[in-house]
């Protein structure tokens, strides 16, 4: 017995999702559509990725516009995917300022997050999920990397209430794939039925509560009533899904990565989980927030740990060594994006590339984190069947609304709408 009692091995690296991929029972759409779907179009999906500290603007934004633009240093990391994505400059949310506090507003475009009494508005992903109806087991999946779950999220309800992100890959895997035995499924269905009557009671009981209430109390109680109603609505659908088998996979569940220094490993893992969710049609919409703001000093590569927290580095003040470390971080994220593009492109669904059915949005609420600037946001869009390979340029001094891009994306999702939040139209040129 050579090895000590405890296996010496590095921080658990996932072994799954590598190579040819995961065996999945695909697609589930066929059996689901008659029951729940509103459309018979091929499914459209979107992956909305955000990093709340953004990237260094100079090496990110390219020179030249249109199809002949020159790849910027960062975008050379995506050179082999040049025709798969579009880079935008001159986009932001009008009137949204407040530096870090705006990171909850990337998908909501709500203004004034830095004020006390601020209330957020519905986020893009939730809005789309509402319009789409529940065509998949999960209307959306809201994921996070190193995320401060209580205080930060990309997803917000109509009432402006935070929807917490999932940051554990094993838990997500379990929700998506782990199938209970017949007995436990029946028990679960029975449980949901019992819960239905409980919710009825709660609604009923609360309706009683209409005596004199202060204005603020009324708002609170309305939130409660809305929540009860929404749980009830979703439960009806959940019960139907409970009867359907979950998709299967031959791969073992992923190992959790808890070490917050391993930012890229976690990011990579969550991107793979997002892809897995699409492949299994567990959901059509995934949000993923990399909470750089609370990420401590991180492992930059095999040899090096950063000399400061991610946030500390972002206030580089042009210090050479900090800028170098940030560039390394930014480039690695571009590489992860490229890997995601490639991986989605390599998968086929009904003869089409998964990438062509999946819009991959990457962006940030920060145009320049060093100075807490919320304008000129770095935005990339890949996939979704758009004509890519362009640099679409808007004015740096008078940005176009980012929500215009959201409207365009929504229309691609098959939703008939011409506005969202602060949009002024669709985004021209895609």
């Amino acid at each position, binding site marked *: *017995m*050579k090895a*000590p*009692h*405890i*296996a*010496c*091995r*590095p921080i658990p690296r996932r072994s799954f999702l590598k190579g040819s991929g995961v065996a999945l029972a695909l697609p589930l759409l066929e059996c689901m559509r008659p029951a729940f779907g509103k459309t018979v179009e091929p499914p459209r999906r979107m992956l909305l990725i955000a990093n709340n500290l953004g990237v260094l603007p100079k090496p990110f934004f390219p020179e030249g516009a249109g199809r002949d633009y020159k790849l910027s240093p960062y975008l050379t990391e995506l050179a082999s995917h040049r025709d798969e994505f579009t880079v935008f400059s001159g986009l932001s949310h009008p009137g949204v*300022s407040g*530096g870090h506090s705006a990171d909850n507003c990337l998908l909501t475009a709500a203004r004034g997050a830095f004020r006390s009494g601020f209330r957020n508005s519905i986020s893009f992903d939730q809005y789309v999920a509402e319009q789409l109806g529940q065509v998949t087991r999960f209307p959306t999946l809201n994921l996070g990397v190193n995320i*401060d*779950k*209580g*205080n930060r999220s990309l997803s917000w*309800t109509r*009432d402006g*209430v*935070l*929807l*917490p992100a999932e940051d554990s890959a094993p838990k997500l895997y379990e929700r998506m794939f782990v199938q209970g035995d017949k007995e436990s499924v029946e028990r679960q269905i029975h449980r949901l039925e*019992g*819960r239905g*009557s*409980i919710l*009825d*009671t*709660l609604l009923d*009981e*609360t309706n*009683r509560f209409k005596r004199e209430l*202060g*204005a*603020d*109390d009324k*708002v*609170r*109680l309305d*939130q*409660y009533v809305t*929540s*009860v109603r*929404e*749980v009830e609505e979703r439960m009806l659908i959940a019960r139907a899904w409970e009867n359907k088998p979950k998709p299967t996979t031959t791969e073992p569940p992923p*190992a959790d990565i808890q070490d917050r220094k391993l930012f890229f490993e976690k990011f990579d893992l969550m991107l793979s989980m997002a892809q897995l969710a699409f492949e299994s049609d567990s959901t059509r919409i995934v949000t993923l927030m990399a909470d750089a703001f*609370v990420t*401590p*000093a991180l492992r930059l590569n095999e*040899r090096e*740990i950063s*000399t400061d*927290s991610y946030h*500390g580095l972002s206030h580089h*003040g*042009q*210090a*050479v060594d900090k800028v170098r470390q940030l560039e390394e971080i930014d480039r690695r994220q571009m590489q992860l994006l490229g890997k995601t593009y490639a991986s989605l492109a390599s998968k086929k669904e009904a003869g089409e590339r998964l990438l062509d059915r999946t819009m991959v949005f990457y962006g940030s609420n920060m145009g*320049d984190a*060093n*100075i807490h600037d919320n304008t000129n946001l770095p935005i990339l869009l890949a996939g979704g069947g758009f004509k890519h390979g362009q640099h679409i340029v808007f004015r740096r001094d008078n940005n176009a609304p980012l929500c215009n891009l959201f409207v365009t994306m929504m229309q691609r999702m098959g939703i008939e709408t011409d506005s969202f939040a602060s949009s002024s139209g669709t985004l021209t040129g895609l």
Partner: protein
Amino acid sequence: MKAAFFFVICGSLATLRAQVRPPELNRLISTRCAVCHSGGPSAKAGLDFSALSFDLSNRAIRDRWIRVHDRIEKGEMPPKGMPFTAADRAALLKELTPPLYQADLADARKNGRGPMRRLNRDEYEQNLRDILHLPDLDIRDMLPEDREAYHFNKVADTLDMSRVQLAAYLDAAEVALRQAMVTTPEPSPIQKFHTFGRNLFPGLRSTGTRQSMFFIKDNHGVNVESEDDAPPLSKALLEDQTLEMGLFRSPGWPYGAFPRGFAANHSGRYRVRFSARAVLQHPDFILTDAVQAVPMTFRSRRPTNHDIAEDVKSVGGILEIKPGRHVYETIVPLAAGQTVEYGLLGLPVPQVDAQGITGSYRFPPMPPGGQPGVAFNWLEIEGPIPPESWPPASHQVLFDNLGVSPNPAQPKQEAIRLLRRFMSLAARGPVPEEGARKFEQLVLASLDRHEPFADAVLAGYQAFLCSDLFLYLREPTTEFAVADQLSHFLTNSRPDAQLLTARLSDPQTVAHEADRLIDGAGFERFVKSFAGYWLNLRYLRRDDPDKRLFPEYQLDEYLTDSLERETLAFVTALVRDNLPIRNLVQADFVYINDRLAKHYELAPVTGSAIRRVELPKDSPLGGLLTQGAILKVTANGFSTSPVLRGAWIMDRILGEPPTPPPPGIPAVEPDIRGAKTIRDLLTLHTKSSTCASCHAKFDPVGLALENFDVEGHWRTHYRGTAEGEVVKGIDHTGHDFTYTIAGAVDPSGTLADGRTFRSISDLKAIFASNPRQLARNFLEQLTVYATGTPVRFSDRVEIEKMLDACESNGYRARDLVRALVRSKVFLGEYGS
């Protein structure tokens, strides 16, 4: 002229604008403020007085005017250089204050001081623990994390409800109720486990070189000849009852020191008894008796051999293992399938090498005098410890005297009786009859559907525990609501029986009850939660100290744990011992144990228990500012920033949070290239007058703390990686390290008001000279925490009254709490 015109317009639109500015106020604003603050889009800071209504019943407009009031009051506006006399300022405030006060008070009277507040997840868990008599109930992590506002997780406005939140409450309530119910006719059979010698460790060796763990016979290591191999022990040794297992390391991944062959069959509390002695290890695996005790802990975990990413919890407290063989005992809660892991605090943690390459788990060099550790001889685990009665108290809360598997002859009648009984036990006030009937109907409907009796009743309980009646704390308009608010303030849980029956219409009784709760056991929860948020203690483990710069702190959980207990003990003493508030910044004592005595370079003390120690004269220590926990949460593990520390102290301790740069002012990109020292850097930071005026308020405060490193250890020089004298060695985790002694620390500075200090002691004296400010901030933090609503404009006068009342005695902390709970701020109109 313009003003008069404006006034006329206002008058004519009286139906639209509820109120107009008083003429004198209008004159002052128009002549003194509107010069810059008017003209629509060009108005400075987006404040346009010509367009700002004076309808103070509108909250947004009132808030705007309150900001105007405050900036004028603090002298921030009008800016320097504008014609504005002290008389102007006084006149303006005299005009502005009364209408704001009246409007705010009217709003509070009409709508309540603050909205009803959802229980946060800590409170929900504790409520259920108390109702169900399940002290170890663990459902907090089933609920989403609560949002934070004004530093706390107790603010009504941000404790939102969503479908996710409600579904989580339903799940958590269900889990709790199922745990409270038993289904077996008798308690789980008691499992008795006894083992010794070789079986006290799962394998034959641990990670880390041999020195980490080995078996001992007659003070000599056995089976230690080869570093790589661990040949099986001889049959004689396997059966040798005198064989000991020696452990010389702290727990840390990957680690697994637990007995062979034990896993709990059932969840419950287990009694762990063992025989052990503290020892010293010398070269060649020779042991002698130790001189000092070694603190030991247990963690509950599954007996797997790696990947302890799962649920691992510290349980059973700290035991001091003394030299010489003794028998020790502790009680640990275990879930089915779990075992107990042994941990020795403050000892080396052999780790993968600094480059992250696996395979090297070097044990650090042996300190002079030997490496401390513990030799274990035998171990017993027995449990689950049966409850005092069967079915247990938790089951009786649910089913009274109906026993296990309740199946009464008259199910409907009994179900209703039980439901009424449960609601009276769980509710924190009277349940309206109409509401109670809804829950009854639910239970009866379940019975009609032929649900099992227990399921039907539990559905009713679950509904009640997720109803608005249970989930929300209400405005203190009744004695029940006052009791509720008071107990959630001081114990994070529901009122006990005495509180529910106390005559709380009398503010004096409220103060008495507060005293009782402060002296009670539940007060620990207040301290943990209040300090966790107010002082960010919950972030103590957020940043690991950098491996290169601070090798001495690597994986030193004993230090982190001690730092946490120090600050908790301090805050506890502040209130319980009714200490003058000055102690927040300047105290002549500290709370330390053996590890902290070393950390703070004080005279050695023995043992892990935190105790009060008087400081030598001229010590820079004492008070919050120099506590390691505070200095750690205000740093990032790598460097200390006077900007961040200064801003933090001004915000948390002095109640002067830095204001974010006003909108409309372009952010200035600081260029820190060429800044050699922290002072160069700060000078560059504040080159722009826009930045400088604010940074002057907090940067210097942080400078005074530069003598304290990222863990709060005293330093005279910075450490670096490039320039300066090189220091090399092997740290206590077996890593090589190299750092340099960089520039000297200069802790002197000048505050914004011109007062200068040479060191932290000077700065502390400056802060201590204004105890009223410290006390005001303390009261304001308590107000948010206790009432879920920050101090309102109309509360301010009440806060000042409380301060007046506490002034003569030096603003003592418990006095301040007492003053708060009997005030209108806490009791609302109920208190008047």
